[in-house]
């Protein structure tokens, strides 16, 4: 197991349980994500990964357990007590969605500007300063455009800045959504199947992007992914779930060789089992 030093944890999930009526989607799940590392959450379909994500990002209120986020400055935030937009605003957890949720009728640039809403709201004096065109706001807006431009460059969409997000190709939309999440300047970036629907070349580019986010910006990443080539290549730590419980965790190598993981995948879906075993080799 890599990294037992508790001080390095950014996210600690402890005995998380989520019930929907009588169905237990996640039971007593505990795991940690390390600072400036990429942690992957994998498992067969219906294992409860997205439910965990929705608990962490405030879309569901957990039935039990705790989720702690430790910021660089030592603040520890109980995510299970925050809800809705406050997770993103106060705890600085950003996320993307399995089925891309961009603002399709707004341009790529506008999408990234919306992501900087809270910072810009403060700078615009909650609209009043902005309405009269105060220089404070104009500077802030210029800074926001610079940040957005920087991210468009990073995800290789600078030439599409003024195109409607809905007009971008699928792979471009995926990258734009990641850029949008990064524009909120998050402490933890949560990605829900970022490689879904991408071809091999796009997957490779995605891996590169995620590694650069980790290495250059030091942002911690938590991702759910089915594409094992991506998971095995970039993850520092992998947590495997099945039927709502954790069945294994460790480095990519440890997980790949774990008989329980292979059984879980074989027991449900042969293609995925094959993917697990082939992945990363």
């Amino acid at each position, binding site marked *: 197991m890599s990294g037992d030093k508790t001080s390095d944890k950014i996210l600690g999930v402890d005995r998380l349980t989520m019930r929907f009526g009588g169905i237990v989607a996640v039971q007593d799940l505990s795991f940690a994500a390390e600072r400036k590392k990429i942690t992957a959450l994998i498992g067969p379909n219906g294992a409860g990964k997205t439910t965990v994500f929705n608990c962490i*990002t*405030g*879309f569901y209120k957990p039935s039990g357990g705790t989720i702690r986020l430790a910021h660089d400055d030592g603040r520890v935030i109980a995510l299970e007590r925050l809800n*809705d*937009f*406050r*997770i*993103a*605003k*106060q705890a600085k957890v*950003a*996320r993307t*969605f399995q089925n891309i*949720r*961009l*603002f*399709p*009728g*707004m*341009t790529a*640039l*506008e999408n990234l*500007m*919306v*992501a*900087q*809403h*809270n910072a*810009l*709201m403060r700078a*615009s004096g*909650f*609209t009043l300063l*902005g*309405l009269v065109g105060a220089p404070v*706001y104009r500077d802030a807006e210029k800074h926001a*455009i610079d940040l957005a*431009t920087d991210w468009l460059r990073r995800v290789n969409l*600078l030439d599409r*800045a*003024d*195109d*409607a997000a*809905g*007009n971008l190709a699928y792979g471009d939309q995926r990258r734009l959504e990641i850029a*949008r*999440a990064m524009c*909120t300047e998050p402490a933890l970036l949560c990605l829900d199947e970022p490689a879904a629907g991408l071809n091999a070349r796009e997957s490779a580019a995605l891996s590169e992007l995620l590694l650069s986010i980790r290495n250059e910006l030091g942002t911690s990443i938590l991702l759910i992914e089915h594409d094992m080539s991506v998971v095995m290549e970039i993850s520092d730590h992998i947590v495997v779930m099945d039927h709502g419980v954790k069945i294994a965790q460790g480095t990519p190598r440890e997980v790949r060789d774990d008989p329980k993981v292979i059984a879980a995948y074989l027991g449900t879906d042969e293609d995925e089992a094959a993917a697990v075993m082939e992945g990363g080799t």
Partner: protein
Amino acid sequence: MTAPSINTAKPATGIPALLKTAFINAAIALVLFSLMIGIRTEAGSDGQLTYWTRFGELASLVAAVFGGSIVIELLRQWIGPTGTEKLVPPAVQSGLSFVGRYLAPALLIFTLLVPVIFYNQRYILDLAILVLTYVMLGWGLNVVVGLAGLLDLGYVAFYAVGAYSYGLLATNFGWSFWICLPLAGILAAFWGVLLGFPVLRLRGDYLAIVTLAFGEIIRLVIINWQSLTGGPNGVSGIPRPTFFGIPLDNSDDGLAAKLGIEYSSTHRIVFLFYVILALALLTNWVTIRLRRLPIGRAWEALREDEVACRALGINTTTTKLTAFATGAMFGGFAGAFFATRQGFISPESFTFQESALVLAIVVLGGMGSQLGVALAALAMIGGFELFRGLETYRMLVFGMAMVLIMIWRPRGLIGHRAPTVYLTKAQAISSDLVKEGHG
């Protein structure tokens, strides 16, 4: 649900098929109209119900349906399937946007000159004031419906709050228009927040029906709270606006006397015209400005995808509330203006039909487009005026027009969206991509 509908309309080919369709339509019309048109009932003076037949009218209506179906069917074959009209060639679109760029300034200059050109035509000046009132209401509602994607069917409530605020403050305390105007806006915005706070988490149609109910509640309270509002008799004797304290009348203190010119009642009309024009332009300026601020972008983002907004840390409740309050405030201003212009207000002016009319203006204009809303207000109110002579048929025609316009252009006159910020070039965004909001 975005998949285009499978074209089930079988294009009738040849004369026999054409006649067959027309015959079926005429037969349906015959059944529909048989009792409602063919028989006319009326209560006699003794309360006894009598009836007489109108078979002539029935026959001519059925014949009209028969002829109409043939014409429509022929037109349909001439133009081709209706589904293709969406594909407007890029050249035409850029041409339209070229026209659009110069249309707005041209319209503005023309509007500024209206009192000069039509100085002696009182009717046209009155109509222009009416159109501008609806332009302002349309722009106000556009913030709520067009930008934030919140469906509000009770907008007239805020118009009423503004009108009664000024009417009651002026008649009871003698406060001047210019003090009451901001107060009317603030009060309307306050009511907007009061209503908005509990209901804004509702989605789509539910929000629509709740706002409709709210509009009706306000109207019913105005009717029934006679001690305050005068009930169905309304509030009369509302003071006319002054030129910042100087009355526009025939007295020795009047503006005409002070300027040493001859008094004319047209002065007041012209003054009112410029007041409503200024108010409308203020609405427009603030809206355009707000769109480029984070709050305005958040409104549009909310219309596009509320869940994504929450994931980006945007407080969707306060964002919706600000949109609702902003729209309500403009409605309140317009209401105060309406009260001072009419000098008399009664609950009859604030029915659901008014809300529907303003909403129709916003949707016909193309949601979110300021120019489109102005054009739609001109077309709707102007068209409405044309039918003034046919009092009872007016709403009938208006209803039919609403149905036909929706079928003809569900996205409104100006469907594309202009981006609020750009790096190299602002490109219009096709309406097919722009969402309509869910809440």
